[in-house]
C-alpha cells in the first residue's frame, strides 16, 4: 500500500524534517504515528497524499510513484485516499449532505448514485438525521464524523488522519476511534498521526514513533511511550 525507501525532506529554509525514512505499510493495516511536536509526524503523513514532495528517495502509494508523479495526476491519487484533519476542514457554506456529496461530484458520479451513497455513509457514521445542518450547528464530534463520511464516501483504499481526535473530549474521541476501527475492519488501510496516549494504549495497533525526523520505533501492538 505505502512504501518509502530512503526518503528525505528538507524544507526551503534548510530544516531537515525527515531523513532516511524506510517503511512499508501493508493493505488493511491500522498504523499510529506518534512522536513529540515538531518531530516530523505531520510531514511524514503529508508525504503520503503528496501535500509535501520528497526531496530525495522513493515513495509509492497505491501504485503511484510520488517522487515522479505529474501535477495533474495528483487529483487522481487523492481520489483513492480519504483525508481527515484535526480541524475537520468542512466547507462552512455547505450542509452536511452537500459536504459529503461534494467528494462524489468531483468524480462526476450520477446524482442518483450520490444520493444513495451519501445517505448510506451518513447513516454509517451516525448522522442520519443531520443532513441539512450546517457545520457550525454541529458539535466537534459530529463535525469530525462528517469529515469521516466525506473521507470514505468514495470507498478509498487508504484513510489518512492527522490528529483526528485532537480537539475532542475522551468519550467523543472513543466514538470516532470506533468508526475508524470499523472502516479498517472493512479492509481499508488507516494511517493516523496522534498525540492521544489513552487511545494508543487502549486500542492496540502498530505504532511508528518519529523523533528528530527519523523513525525510532516500529512495533506491532505498540504503546504510546511518551509522557504527555
Amino acid at each position, binding site marked *: 500500500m505505502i512504501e518509502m525507501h530512503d526518503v528525505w525532506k528538507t524544507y526551503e529554509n534548510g530544516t531537515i524534517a525527515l531523513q532516511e525514512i524506510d517503511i512499508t505499510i501493508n493493505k488493511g493495516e491500522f498504523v499510529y504515528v506518534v512522536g513529540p511536536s515538531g518531530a516530523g509526524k505531520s510531514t511524514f503523513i503529508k508525504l503520503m497524499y503528496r*501535500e509535501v514532495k520528497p526531496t530525495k528517495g522513493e515513495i509509492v502509494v497505491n501504485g503511484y510513484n510520488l517522487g515522479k508523479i505529474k501535477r495533474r495526476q495528483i*487529483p487522481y*491519487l487523492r*481520489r483513492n485516499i480519504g483525508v481527515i484533519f484535526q480541524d475537520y*476542514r468542512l*466547507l462552512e457554506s455547505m450542509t452536511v449532505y452537500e459536504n459529503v456529496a*461534494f467528494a462524489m461530484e468531483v468524480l*462526476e458520479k450520477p446524482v442518483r448514485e450520490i444520493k444513495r451513497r451519501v445517505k448510506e455513509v451518513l447513516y454509517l457514521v451516525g448522522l442520519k438525521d443531520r443532513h441539512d445542518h450546517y457545520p457550525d450547528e454541529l458539535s466537534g464530534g459530529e463535525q469530525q464524523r462528517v469529515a469521516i463520511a466525506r473521507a470514505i464516501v468514495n470507498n478509498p483504499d487508504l484513510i489518512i488522519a492527522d490528529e483526528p481526535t485532537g480537539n475532542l473530549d475522551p468519550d467523543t474521541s472513543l466514538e470516532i476511534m470506533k468508526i475508524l476501527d470499523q472502516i479498517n475492519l472493512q479492509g481499508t488501510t488507516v494511517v493516523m498521526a496522534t498525540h492521544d496516549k489513552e487511545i494508543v494504549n487502549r486500542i492496540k495497533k502498530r505504532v511508528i514513533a518519529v523523533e528528530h525526523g527519523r523513525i525510532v520505533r516500529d512495533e506491532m501492538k505498540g504503546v504510546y511511550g511518551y509522557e504527555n
Partner: protein
Amino acid sequence: MKIRTLGRHFRESFRNIWRNGWMTFASISTVSVTLLILGVFVLLALNLDNLSKYAEKTVEIRVFLKDGTTDQQIDQLHNRLKTMPEISEVVFIPKEEGLKQLKEGFGEQGYLLEGLEEENPLPDGFLVKTLIPQETAKVAELLSQMEEVDKVRYGKGVVEKLFTITNIVRNVGLILIVGLAFTAMFLIANTIKLTILSRKNEIEIMKLVGSTNSFIRWPFFIEGSLLGLVGAVIPLVLLLFGYDYLLKHMDIPFIMLLPIEPLWGKLTLLLLGIGVFIGIWGSITSIRKFLRV
C-alpha cells in the same frame, strides 16, 4: 466533462453569487461604476471626433485657372483631377457661377458687382475636397504646379490651426480612454481577486478530495463572466437612457450629437467585451496561485 457536471458548475456558481451577497454586490458595483465612467468618456470622445471631422470637412481648395484656358483643356483637367487618389470631390465652377457666389457673399452690397457680367474678370475654377483633410496643403501645392492653374487658395494658416486642435482633441480622448480602460481592468480584477481570496479554504478542501484544477476553475469562470456581464449591462442601460435624454433635450447651436444607432452597437460590444473578459481573466488569474496546493 460530462453534461451533468456542467450543470453542477452552473448551479454552484449561482449559489456562490447568491451566498457571497456582499462580495457580489461589491464586484458588480465596481464593474458598473468603472464601465460607466469609461462609457461616458467613449461617448464624449466619439462625439468630439465627429465634431472634428465635421469641421475638417469644411476645408476645401479653390483652384483658379489661367485666363484663356480652352474648354477642352478644362475638360481634360477635370478628368485628371477626378482620377487623383488624394481627391474625393471635384466641382467645376465656371466664371459666371463664381460671380454669382461672390455676389451672394456680398449680400446687400451685391449691387456693387452689377454690370460685371459682360466683362467677367473672374477666372474659371474648381472646388476640390481632399480625401484626407490633413493633406490639404500638400494637394494644394501639387495643384498649383499644374500648367493650367493660375492660383490655389485654401485658407492657409487657419486650416493648419484647425488640424492641430482636432489632433489634440483626438489624442487626449484616446489617452483618456486607454488609461480608463486599464484602470477599469485593474479595479475589476482586484475586486474579483478579493472574492476569491475569501474562498481560499474552499479551494484547498476541493483539492484535498481530489478535484482537478479545471473542476475547481469552472464555477469561478462562470461566476466571473456573469459578474462581468451584469456589471456591463447596468452602465449600458444607464448610458442609453442618459444619451437619449441628451439627444432629445440638449439644444446647443453647432453641436450635433451622433445618432444612437451605429454608436450603440460599438459601445455595447466594447463594454460587454471588457466586462466579460475582465471577469473571466480576473477570476482565472486569482485562483491560479491557490491551485498549486
